[in-house]
């Protein structure tokens, strides 16, 4: 939704404990969007056409990562926005929150190593026919950083089957050549899931951080297209 020829507006939700919010705001602006900070107590998305739930430790991740954030006032507005077909991108803690409110299936367990892991991984793009992925090439391999302790995606077998049948896996951990292998999986996630997308392709959750990779000086530009797709969907 553009507003009279102006840049598309993207809401970046700020929870107490969000810590990738400023990076997300800057990245949205860098790829041509207008980034709008939205406070967790607000129920108004301020005419934004897309929502970004940034990474961090919302409410300290007390109880369970993303669990408290799922019950904050702003998430009622985000759910309404999503139900009406609006675009939502959840990155890292934002992905965990999307799982907690049921916009995407499954749950996150602690990493297989039981430790926080921050390093670059490769992910293969599985879908490019959906709004939040259409700037990417089929089979494209992205090199992006992960930084999480709870990124080990889990679901019961029936759900996993359904996810695969629907083509809901957006991104999978792979080796640099694009092979999806067990030893390229950093955290034990089922089916090497690094990102999931809703049936309509308007809700995307992912553990890697595209907002940290939009500059050649800062590790590369592999996150640019994903951020741009969000802005274009706004």
């Amino acid at each position, binding site marked *: 939704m553009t507003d009279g020829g102006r840049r598309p507006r993207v809401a970046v939700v700020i929870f*107490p404990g969000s810590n*990738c919010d400023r990076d997300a705001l800057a990245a949205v602006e860098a790829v041509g969007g207008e980034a709008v900070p939205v406070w967790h107590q607000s129920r108004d998305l301020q005419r934004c056409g897309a929502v970004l739930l940034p*990474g961090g430790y919302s*409410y300290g*991740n007390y109880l369970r990562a993303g669990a408290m954030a799922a019950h904050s006032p702003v998430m009622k507005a985000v759910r309404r926005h999503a139900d009406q077909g609006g675009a939502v991108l959840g990155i890292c803690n934002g992905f965990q929150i999307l799982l907690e409110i049921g916009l995407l299936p499954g749950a996150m367990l602690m990493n*297989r*190593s039981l430790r926080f892991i*921050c390093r670059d991984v490769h992910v293969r793009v599985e879908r490019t026919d959906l709004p939040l992925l259409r700037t990417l090439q089929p089979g494209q391999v992205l090199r992006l950083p992960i*930084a999480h302790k709870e990124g080990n995606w889990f679901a019961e077998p029936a759900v996993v089957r359904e996810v695969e049948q629907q083509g809901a896996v957006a991104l999978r951990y792979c080796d640099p050549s694009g092979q999806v292998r067990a030893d390229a999986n950093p955290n034990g996630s089922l089916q090497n899931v690094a990102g999931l997308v809703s049936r309509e392709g308007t809700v995307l959750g992912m553990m890697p951080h595209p907002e940290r990779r*939009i500059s050649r000086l800062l590790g590369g530009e592999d996150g640019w297209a994903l951020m741009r797709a969000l802005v274009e969907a706004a």
Partner: protein
Amino acid sequence: MRWDAEANLELAREHGLHPQEWERLLAALGRTPNLVELGIFSALWSEHCSYKSSRAHLRKLPAQGPRVIQGPGENAGVVAVGQGWVAVFKMESHNHPSFIEPYQGAATGVGGILRDVFTMGARPIMALDSLRFGDPDAPRMRYLVDGVVRGISDYGNCVGVPTVGGEVDFHPSYNGNILVNAMVVGVAREDGIFYGRASGPGNHVVYMGSKTGRDGIHGATMASDAFDEAAAAKRPTVQVGDPLTEKLLIECCLELMSRGLVVGIQDMGAAGLTSSSFEMASRAGCGLVLDLDAVPVREHGMTPYELMLSESQERMLLIVTPGNVMSVINLCKRWGLDATDIGRVIGEPVVRATFRGGPAFELPIAPLVDDAPRYERPFRRPEPAAPATLPALRDRDWGTELKTLLAAPQLVSARRIWQQYDQSVGAATVVGPGADAALVLIPGTRIGLAATTDCNSFACGLDPYCGAAQAVAEAVRNLACVGAEPVGVTDCLNFGSPENPTVMGQFVAAIEGVAETCRVLEIPVVSGNVSFYNQTSGQSILPTPAIGMVGVVAEVRHVPRGSWELGEALYVLGPLEGELGGSRYLQIILGLEAGPVPAVDHVAERRRSRVVAELVRLGVVAATDISDGGLVTALVRMGSPDCGADLTIPWDSLVARVLFGEWLGRFLLAVQPACEPALVQACEGMELARLGTVGGDRLVVRAGKRIVLSESMAELCGLPERQLEWMEGVQG
């Protein structure tokens, strides 16, 4: 015993005061203090708060320079870094708590140093950690390593400040006293700096952040005491961290300051409300009245003694004009933080507190802060370790020796540690951990701030003066490897008991080594921390003057690389042969704790570092500093498992000194063939040796035509990874 009971000599002793300090207290006060007053004296006169044994020597450190905006004495040092920006930084120890309770000890160490930086109005943009552990096989050591790393990880990751560098070393002298030194660098606009000053009589004193509990009472006193077998009993004096509250404090404080709502601000660190109130009043030449009933508490029945000495974490003290108090409280509420008006600034230089309607204490400020005891402790200057009597180092099995070296704890790859730290939050990390130095952009600019921590404590044990001087020189070289020019130093001086003349001698020599090197290289020391009493059952740690250095790249145009590429030529800048005195080769391979550790050649260091920094900025070379383990370990660091090199040194070289020699300010450089003329021209007049080229999957070194070393790169690169393999947990 009631908090207002009359104190006596016996109680003073229990509080760690010497009899002559008790006499001094009585004379300064002109009466007998009550128990809470004694507690306040003992905290502010502790070594940790008063620097009573170190102050006379700390003065030797050069604190001036054209970039210096704030030197030692505030919460952190401040230097100008260009375009109106300033870097605010400090390093601090949290050794004793981390040994008793590694997870919380390390976590709250990170929290404390973050507060020292954002208190000054600066947004923290990077953290580094300098860690020292004992023998990896010593009892509890894995527990300590694991706990410290998880503590730093859980706290630092949550607050969203990237951990981008640091160092880790192992030595049995730390078996009973590990070191956890944390450094934070923040940035601010030059006109946006705030100070810890309680000025303006009539202004309000606002308490902000977590409520006060009984944790950490007498932490500062504990930090000023040696350990014994009863250390475990001190576990309750270790504070507990809450990183979410810290994150909210960062954002809320920076917003309060940017809106101009505070006059002065300081965190309640060591000795809590006591040190923050007395120090802020002292700096402003004012006094305070405090209503202790207003202090937010999380436990019932807390006494003035406990309220004044609690070290509960994540608390700040603000000075606010009367008209802004409501705005401050409302903004804090928005961030979900408690803020309470607990007192006033007064003109009279005393701190006066009331409790339950009556007086709790009244103490003059000067005797506690400005006139705290100062000691010129007797010291014995250390004799530098004698030169080693070396066996004939010819025709040895250099390959096996290299592999032994690379597998030793001292040469460990810290990858498994720093992969547990968020290195790129903030989206500004150009060079993260594992490199010679870290490089982070000031948000929204192309200005790069570089930082490194360095200290070879093995060398400092052999010769504290030269070892400390070499730590400074190594830091300069490390900054050069990412293209940065040094602008300031913070130091964290970890030693045994100052009451031991030998330890005091190490301390004095190390300070003089740092001071002389920083003076000649014109790098001001703008902040720091002294940690004494790092000893257990009479056994002191190695002298460990950790150097934290910050540098600047005015405009980052290229990403500095730490590894070589196929087809590049390799050069050594500086003497091809290093010195073996105090080297890792002597320590690990020959089992000799012997010198000499060479003095720093200031002229050569400065010339080479400047040219390397320039070449790195231009993207001409990849550079690494030749230090621990010598040239061969630098080669392994710069190489990769599938990409080796073939090198030739003169047939008559002293092979051990070429391969394993250290010191002398040397760099290993990798350069594309097309850029070789530029390198040679830039280094004109300096010692520069071309060793060979990158290629193949082995590391091959020839002396003339004779092969002296030929090893698989994959094997060599894997060895430094082994030491911490256990950290991988159940990951397959």
